[in-house]
């Protein structure tokens, strides 16, 4: 697959004598040496990674790690000192002003930590701003803006000024403004960091829902590892201007590349991070009610070696569990269905239920935990007691 964004050896140096600083950097001088010799600070050092189409890519680092500067290199709000950035096949670093404007108008939009909304314009005018800059006629841009306003849940607020909205609402305007251009790439600079924790979680959820529909390529900056793990398909961790690890949340959690990363990971409460969706077996063997009678169920139990099976309807609606000894009983009685022995009163988890929330399930029962769709009640997967117990107790020692 051709990456959507290819970041190739991006180096960013602040200061006067960048040429010399760059040479020193190539010769392997440390940041401190370069600062002492040339007075230049190295903001980003030789960052390279690819971002795939439709990927939610998070760059995580503490303040001063160079993450925001690196992000700004992607649309050249800051000019990288050396290196290349490719959007599809276009080398962004070599574009002239006109071409760059076109890229910013059509392909790459940005969402800011402090929102960056125009205080003298209404929500509608703010959202339509990008289209206005492109010269789209008023009627057309308002129509498009109205659509994204609805998408981010701001319908009814079109004529308000941003200052009348809460922080979360303002950031929705920021997000809507970025989406109105229908860009391929969305850059989000600590987009939720200025919001209070409850609103932040809510916005994260909504962003993930939106992403499910839109499949944009998102580059998201954060200083919060929990947020990174929650949102990211992959995460790049930065320290002192260097990218020290790129990987999926699970890779970061399980195989931290350096001491620095592991010191971070330690602080993450895995129980609060890891969700049912990542623990579950997504293709569990099930007893299908009405299709599988006692005979069919027993055959499945024999082939899997399990003595408990989840029972579902033909279209996968979760009903409950059946136990080996009771199915045998039913069979001995000569019943044709397993209806009588389905245990329906069982706790279920949703895909985003965290391990922490599933803790009570361990204490209560010896059954596996069924993971169902929150609305349709369809069975999505099954978490064995073993998996749950290991996750809650043994993760640090593994």
């Amino acid at each position, binding site marked *: 697959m051709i990456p959507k964004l290819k970041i190739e050896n991006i180096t960013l140096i602040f200061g006067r004598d960048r040429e010399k600083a760059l040479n020193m950097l190539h010769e392997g001088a440390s940041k401190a040496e370069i600062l002492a010799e040339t007075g230049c600070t190295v903001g980003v050092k030789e960052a390279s990674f690819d971002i795939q189409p439709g990927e939610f890519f998070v760059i995580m680092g503490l303040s001063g790690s160079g993450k925001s500067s690196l992000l700004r290199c992607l*649309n050249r*709000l800051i000019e990288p000192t050396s290196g290349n950035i490719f959007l599809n096949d276009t080398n962004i670093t070599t574009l002239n002003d006109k071409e*760059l*404007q*076109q*890229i*910013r*108008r*059509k392909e790459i*939009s*940005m969402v*800011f*930590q*402090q*929102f*960056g*909304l*125009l*205080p*003298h314009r209404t929500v509608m005018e703010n959202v339509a*701003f*990008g289209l*206005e*800059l*492109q010269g789209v006629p008023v009627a057309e841009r308002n129509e498009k803006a109205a659509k994204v306003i609805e998408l981010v849940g701001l319908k009814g607020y079109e004529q308000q*000024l941003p*200052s*009348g909205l809460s922080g979360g609402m303002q950031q929705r305007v920021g997000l809507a*403004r970025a989406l109105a*251009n229908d860009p391929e790439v969305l*850059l989000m600079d600590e987009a939720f960091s200025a919001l209070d924790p409850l609103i932040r979680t809510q916005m994260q959820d909504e962003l993930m829902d939106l992403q499910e529909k839109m499949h944009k390529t998102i580059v998201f900056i954060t200083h919060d590892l929990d947020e990174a793990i929650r949102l990211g398909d992959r995460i790049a961790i930065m320290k002192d201007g260097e990218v020290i690890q790129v990987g999926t949340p699970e890779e970061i959690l399980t195989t931290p590349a350096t001491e620095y990363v592991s010191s971070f990971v330690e602080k993450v409460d895995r129980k609060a991070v890891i969700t049912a969706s990542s623990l579950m077996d997504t293709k569990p063997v099930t007893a299908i009610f009405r299709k599988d009678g006692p005979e069919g169920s027993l055959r499945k139990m024999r082939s899997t070696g399990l003595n408990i099976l989840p029972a579902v309807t033909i279209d996968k609606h979760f009903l409950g569990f059946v136990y080996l000894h009771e199915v045998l009983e039913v069979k001995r009685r000569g019943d044709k269905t397993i209806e009588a022995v389905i245990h329906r009163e069982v706790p279920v988890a949703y895909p985003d239920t965290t391990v922490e929330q599933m803790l009570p399930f361990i204490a209560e029962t010896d059954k596996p935990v069924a993971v169902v769709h929150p609305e349709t009640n369809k069975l999505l997967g099954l978490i064995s007691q073993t998996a749950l117990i290991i996750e809650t107790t043994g993760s640090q020692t593994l």
Partner: protein
Amino acid sequence: MIKIGKYIEHFINWLTLHFGPFFKSVKHIVEAMVNAVQWVLGIMPWYVLILLLAIFAWRRAGWSAGVFTLLGLGLIYGMGYWPQTMETLALILVSACIALLIGIPFGIWAARNNMVGKILRPILDFMQTMPAFVYLIPAVLFFGLGKVPGVFATIIFAMPPAVRLTTLGIQQVPKDIVEATRSFGATSTQLLLKVELPLAMPTILAGVNQTIMMALSMVVIAAMIAAGGLGEIVLKGITQLKIGVGFEGGIAVVILAIILDRITQSFGKKRMKKTSN
């Protein structure tokens, strides 16, 4: 001894000698402008104009400003200084307009270009602090006696706040808003017109207010070179030691100043309210 004065004298003489026709045409244009404004002000009877101004002040700045305009201008008429007041008003309007037309673009330029800002700053200091009388001498040399040198000196004296507050207003536009605007592919003209100027407007309007106020104070001084208007009355009071006349002229100036101030300030306040709500 360093004789800077000599060099400046030579320079001014050289200018008058070589740019005579240029100054002459400028003089005609400015004179025509002042006369036109004065003609417009005189087109309707005094009581209609007072009423119109009072209504305008009331709509913009509230009932107290309206009442003050009505009574204040009535008093001026009663004192018999109506023609001089209109003459002064015409001078102010023309000088302030020209000062703003030159000052605001320079202010924008200085805000967007550090070098220009650095060069402009000492020039503005010079224009603002040099005793106002000093401008009058070269002004007379360039344009002769009358209204035009008065306008010229007033423009120089009244322009700095327009430049400074425009620059300040644009530089105060929050960095994140400017960055966001750029990130959406705005050209620098779009950035200026759609973001920087609207957001800087309250500050720029404060500059407009200051320019008009300073123009008013200078117009009085300009009476020394026969610019006419209320300054002439004040000057008469000084030179002939007529305390009463001097005060009457002074009171008329104060009334005019307060009216202009309230009206121009109201524009800035309205905008400020709109952006902060």
